[in-house]
């Protein structure tokens, strides 16, 4: 149990440091690469929390799919000559910081007020046949309709993306 906590601390530090790097880098490709590091750390935390299937899906969809898309668009859109964007105006930065702190404070207060669940058991998550089987059974027995809705959503998004990105004839 102690090992789990130490690993969580290390992964959390990596995830947080990388996510700060994402929003502070001037170079978009660097931001994207740090974002991949964040996704990796988060996937490892999923595995730590007995969500092996989700961890793999996180890598497959985020790292393998979404980030490639991001990098592709960055390579298409960012021209070598354009240079980094100008520094944010000072009041803008200050206002952003204050707003973020406000959001964080409200959310944190809400977290603290909500009843704390005890550290969890693992029996239900990986019962008979492992996490993959448990998740898929839940998905196709109890959540079939949401599943179908999400697949339609993805189809619509696909069609919409193609229509938007295709050049006007």
């Amino acid at each position: 149990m102690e090992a789990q906590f130490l690993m969580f601390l290390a992964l959390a530090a990596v995830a947080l440091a990388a996510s700060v790097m994402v929003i502070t880098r001037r170079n978009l490709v660097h931001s994207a690469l740090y974002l991949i590091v964040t996704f990796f750390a988060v996937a490892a935390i999923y595995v730590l929390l007995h969500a092996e299937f989700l961890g793999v899906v996180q890598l497959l969809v985020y790292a393998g799919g979404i980030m490639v898309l991001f990098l592709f668009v960055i390579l298409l859109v960012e021209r070598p000559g354009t240079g980094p964007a100008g520094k944010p105006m000072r009041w803008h930065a200050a206002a952003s910081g204050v707003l973020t702190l406000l959001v964080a404070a409200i959310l944190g207060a809400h977290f603290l007020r909500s009843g704390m669940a005890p550290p969890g058991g693992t029996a239900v998550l990986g019962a008979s046949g492992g996490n993959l089987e448990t998740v898929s059974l839940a998905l196709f027995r109890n959540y079939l309709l949401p599943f179908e809705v999400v697949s339609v959503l993805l189809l619509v998004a696909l069609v919409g993306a193609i229509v938007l990105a295709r050049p006007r004839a």
Partner: protein
Amino acid sequence: MSETLLRFVVVPVAQIAVVIAALLLIVVYLVLLERKINAFMQVRLGPRRVGWHGLLQTVADVIKLFTKEDITPRHVDRLVFLLAPVVIILPALAAFAVIPFSGGSFRVGSVGVRAWISDVNVGLLYLLAITSLGVFGVVMAGWSSNSKYPMLGGLRSAAQMVSYEVPLGLSVVSILMLAGTASLVGIVQAQESAGRWFLFWTPYPQILGLFLYFVSGVAETNRLPFDLPEAENELVAGFHTEYSGMKFAFFFLAEYINMVLVGCLVAVLFFGGWLPVTFGIPGLREPLSNFFPFWGGAGAMLTGFFWFGLKVFLVLFLYLWMRATYPRYRYDQLMRLGWKVFIPLGLGHVMVTALAILVRRG
């Protein structure tokens, strides 16, 4: 305590060391084999100066690469440029963590040793996820080189690898449905209990799946006829144009390790992994699955290595044969093939397999 140490540290580390050493050795001779087969198909002799019939040629090449000056061009993005070869080779190696190389087991003290590093229940998905990360190495190399040809190679590779991942995944889905598990060991065992490999699974043999998987695998590994990211006669060398010495060797190594990986996966998913080749003749399985019965489990493991190696070799030979035979695809042809032919074929294949399973269950 010492048993825990043996089980969780000594044995896995030894397994990893053996796998990596074996991989390096295989890659060295795969390169030689490629040159020899190419030479044979072009009625040449191929390398034969270094060692007997050129057996040490690749060793000499490796020494040359090691001792070459390691140049980092001035106009590159240093950090990303240096990381790219590492990022491309790590997923290739990490994928071997779940490959079952053979059956059988032997004991060291009280700890049983199997011929795989780990057997996880999301193994197949892990493989799909980890192999999809190789594309970042290519994109990073292409972008950080800050030069035209690597950039074009990187862009092409990103599009190509993302496109062919879909048919790759679809051909694997039918295997998942047949085996009922995503563990690679479980997949081989399912083929054992089915009595035949998934390639010959009745009533719907997985030949189309094998075709889709293999061709997509060739595209994923950027080999001819799909080697557009490094097409040398249009892009110099594609994404690794600016790399030299050991950094270049890493790209080279990763490409061949990925080829071996596709070979291993084809063997596990479609050819029954370490199971012997019996052509369905009853009574042949027992003697063929253990050549050294007097060694017990270790003998079964060695025999499994032989069968597994044979199947992987066949796939790799096909790779080299294709390289010597086919011209390169054009970029738009490649994309059309991926999106308009392979993905519909893959979807149809999944549906037919599902129907076949229903029919079989009655």
